[in-house]
């Protein structure tokens, strides 16, 4: 039944025309918006909020299928925080997130400056450079796995051979494995950052460039004094997005190295996956997940606060 049909039934008889119309203008019956929101709210409840609540409750319990869970308080947290595996995974996660974030942002900024402009040639280059972003992560990982073939005639080894380096073991060598994953991440992340920077560059007042040129400013000074200040909000947003993306890294690592060799690329997410699904230690795994969530939250809130203070 539509709302229009329902309205006369529920309205009291001596209702005047104007009050009925007033109510409709305010949006009809009170439950109408909830009806429209219901599918989204139910799905969010089931697949976001209930899992989150379960994660928190499991993190303070020993999870024993069929036997019932028992309350263990902070024991799971104590265990995971004191384990060397988690600490090195957390360190690797931070290194990978920082490396990918800064690598992608610096490269993306440089790319954006290079391909800024209106000509058709540039549109083509921009699209080509953007392709890595839309390639599924699983494909990216398998492709780079093949390119990182550790012998001298592997593709990447041939490429770095051109400038007199290598051959490198890449993902097979504990010394270079994390950096190799970061390079793959930067390859995928930089074009994304480039697009966001381009959108930001489009919003910069062109007159400022002209004024700077008239004043005799070099290209370098134009970038430092006009472009960078204009892009400040973009940097802040990209930083949060990239850092959160870095913290939750799973697929690339899972497919490229699965944490190896020798745990040199184990990140928090691959560790949680192993704890939860291979060792069935759901309580400890959940404690790790809650810690990861807390780190993400703290980072986001900090950056938001910094932004607000600066713009105020």
């Amino acid at each position, binding site marked *: 039944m539509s709302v229009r049909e329902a309205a006369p039934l529920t309205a009291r008889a001596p209702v005047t025309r104007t009050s009925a119309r007033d109510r409709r203008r305010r*949006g009809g019956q009170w439950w109408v918006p909830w009806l*429209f929101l219901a599918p989204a709210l139910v799905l969010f409840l089931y697949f976001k909020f209930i899992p989150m609540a379960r994660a928190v409750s499991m993190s303070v319990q020993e999870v024993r299928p069929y036997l019932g869970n028992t309350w263990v308080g902070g024991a799971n947290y104590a265990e995971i925080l004191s384990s060397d595996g988690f600490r090195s995974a957390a360190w690797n996660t931070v290194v990978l997130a920082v490396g990918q974030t800064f690598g992608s942002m610096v490269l993306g900024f440089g*790319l954006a400056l*290079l391909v800024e402009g209106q000509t058709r040639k540039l549109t083509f280059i921009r699209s080509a450079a953007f392709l*890595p972003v839309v390639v599924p992560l699983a494909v990216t990982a398998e492709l780079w796995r*093949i390119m990182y073939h550790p012998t001298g005639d592997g593709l990447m080894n041939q490429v770095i051979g051109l400038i007199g380096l290598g051959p490198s073991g890449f993902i097979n060598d504990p010394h270079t494995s994390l950096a190799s994953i970061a390079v793959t991440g930067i390859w995928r992340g930089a074009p994304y950052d480039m697009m966001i920077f381009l959108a930001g560059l489009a919003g910069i007042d*062109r007159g400022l460039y002209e004024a700077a040129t008239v004043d005799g400013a070099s290209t370098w000074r134009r970038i430092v004094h006009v472009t960078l200040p204009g892009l400040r909000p973009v940097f802040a947003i990209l930083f949060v997005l990239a850092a959160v993306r870095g913290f939750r890294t799973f697929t690339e690592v899972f497919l490229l190295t699965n944490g190896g060799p020798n745990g040199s690329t184990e990140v928090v997410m691959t560790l*949680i996956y192993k704890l939860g699904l291979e060792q069935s230690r759901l309580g400890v795994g959940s404690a790790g997940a809650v810690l990861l969530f807390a780190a993400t939250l703290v980072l986001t809130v900090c950056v938001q606060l910094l932004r607000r203070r600066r713009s105020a």
Partner: protein
Amino acid sequence: MSAATETALGLTESKGVGARVAKFVIYAGLFVVFAGPLLALLVGSFSHVSDPTQLSVVPNRPTLGNFRIAFDHGVLRYLLNSFFVVGFGLLLQVAVSVLAGYALARKVFPLMTLVLVAILATMMLPEEILALPLTLVLADLPVLHLNLMGTLAGMIVPLGAWAFSILVMTEFMKDVPRELEEAARIDGAGELRIFAQIILPLCKPALGVIGVFGFTMIWDQYLLPLLVAQNSSSYTLPLALRTLRIDQAVTPGVVLAASLLALLPSVLVFLFFQRSFARGLTSGALKG
């Protein structure tokens, strides 16, 4: 040079042979770095690549054999699974976002701020972090007591509500003039009619945006299908790539052929809907 085309580096202004050569080298370099690996993938999937060291951008004895072998290993099945998941997932996601966006943009109701905050909060809850408890929820849905593990539905339903799509829809629907709605109401149009015949048709560009982003997001899913699939019959194509690679009888050429099939749909969607894509990137990142 007019002020409108002035850029930070002023590259478009630079003329002369030296500058042109420099520009060409820079752009060629960009192309090689970002499109090169994908070109190698394309060429490799049509070449005899029996060893990872044979990967190159120069075709090596062209063949369609890689695809034949890939299909022998069930790639068609995985591809159909992927299309099923992305088809129904996108349908659900668009329907949910459009309905929620309508309520949030066109109505004022108590607790609205709370609902908005809750939706924004889900953006800070990456599905990766919820992975473990999500498997438990999917194995026994609260109240309904359904088990979605091992089913394609289990890979679809959790993607139904996506905060990004809802917010894009909300922002867009806010811009539809009130007068149109008022006029329709005076003409006696009901709530559903106003939604379906007045507001929705005016939001086609936003539908493009959430459609393109939803498609690439669902097509790129890895962890969720990995958790839900219990045997290879419900694998999606991205998931099957690893299985193919581990198979000793399969050459890298076959993995590349399957990879090409796995990346083609999202690349095509991107190339066809570039404008929607650009709009979504900026609205998602700069407004949010």
